[in-house]
């Protein structure tokens, strides 16, 4: 396949070195207390590593626009899945039912870390 792009070996080795460096970075930063930010830093590094793998190891940088569109669509659907469910889950405490409805909602556990009970 002559028309196909052949990625030079030095690109593969550079990406490999970057992936190892990011792995060391993510382990190191995991022990530093950044509060709620730790998970986002970890996911940011993971997303960077995944992008490097996709662009160079999986040749997306050199692929057709259509293949690039296919690859991004998966993450678009994943973002919809995560976005809508987490938006629901994390905003349930924001609104409280009117007092007249109390009888139905009184037994809802106040703390999210309370033990799960069978209904």
């Amino acid at each position, binding site marked *: *396949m002559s*028309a*196909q792009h*052949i*990625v030079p*070996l030095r690109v*593969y*080795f550079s990406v*490999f070195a970057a*992936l*190892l460096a990011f*792995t060391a970075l*993510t*382990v190191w930063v*995991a*022990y*530093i*207390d*950044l509060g709620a930010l*730790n*998970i986002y830093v*970890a*996911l940011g*590094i*993971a997303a960077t*590593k*995944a992008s490097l*793998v*996709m662009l*160079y*190891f*999986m*040749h997306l940088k050199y*692929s*057709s626009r*259509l*293949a690039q569109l*296919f*690859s991004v*669509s*998966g*993450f678009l*659907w*994943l973002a919809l*899945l*995560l976005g809508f*469910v*987490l938006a629901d*889950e*994390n905003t349930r405490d924001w609104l409280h039912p009117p007092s007249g409805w109390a009888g139905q909602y009184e037994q809802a556990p106040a703390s*999210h*870390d309370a*033990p*799960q009970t069978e209904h």
Partner: protein
Amino acid sequence: MSANTLEAAAEESHGLVAHQFDDAEQQHEAATLGMWAFLVTEVLFFGGLMLGYAVFRSKFPDAFSAGSHELDVGLGAFNTVILIISSLTMAMAVHSGQVGNKKGVALFLVLTLLFGGIFLGVKGVEYADKFEHHLIPGLLFDYHGEAGAGVNPKNVELFFFLYFAMTGVHALHMIIGAGIVLVWLLPRALQGAYGSEYSSPIEMFGLYWHFVDIVWIFLYPLLYLVGRHQ
């Protein structure tokens, strides 16, 4: 898989391009798109588990932190490096095919299998350790770690359910990948089937193998590193 029928058709017609394609380039593009369509479904397959993780971690952050303290960061980091090496050897196999180094294709496929095997071996050691410490969800689950003072063991069990589901399905993907190499790609590579004029199956398998690497890139921080700072 479409590449399989493509290859069969190519062999039948004693050519490298199946009859429904204009040229090798179009055939390669079709195979690439088909593989990416499959990988999109895989993203959503693992995405469901990721969603479960995200929801329950936001509900029980302390239990998930306690659970991650029971995992071995060192073994996890070792496996991450091993999997990245296997991705590099896979990329080298694809490169060898493209430049027509037929022996290189077989050599790098064997190396990819080898590193994949090391990964699964380490995973087995980790699973055995969890079995001994009663950390496998079920009737015998019994958590009493120091990191989890005050957390409900049931919620730690939930973390371990997700740990085994996610790493188990990931390991299954690697086993299937190893099977494809052993049964299909390696025997043909040894016969010199994949060279500069035709190496699509190697490239498509490379996409699959790199995808499995990406899944682990996310699983490692989510399972092993979450809550290490506490």
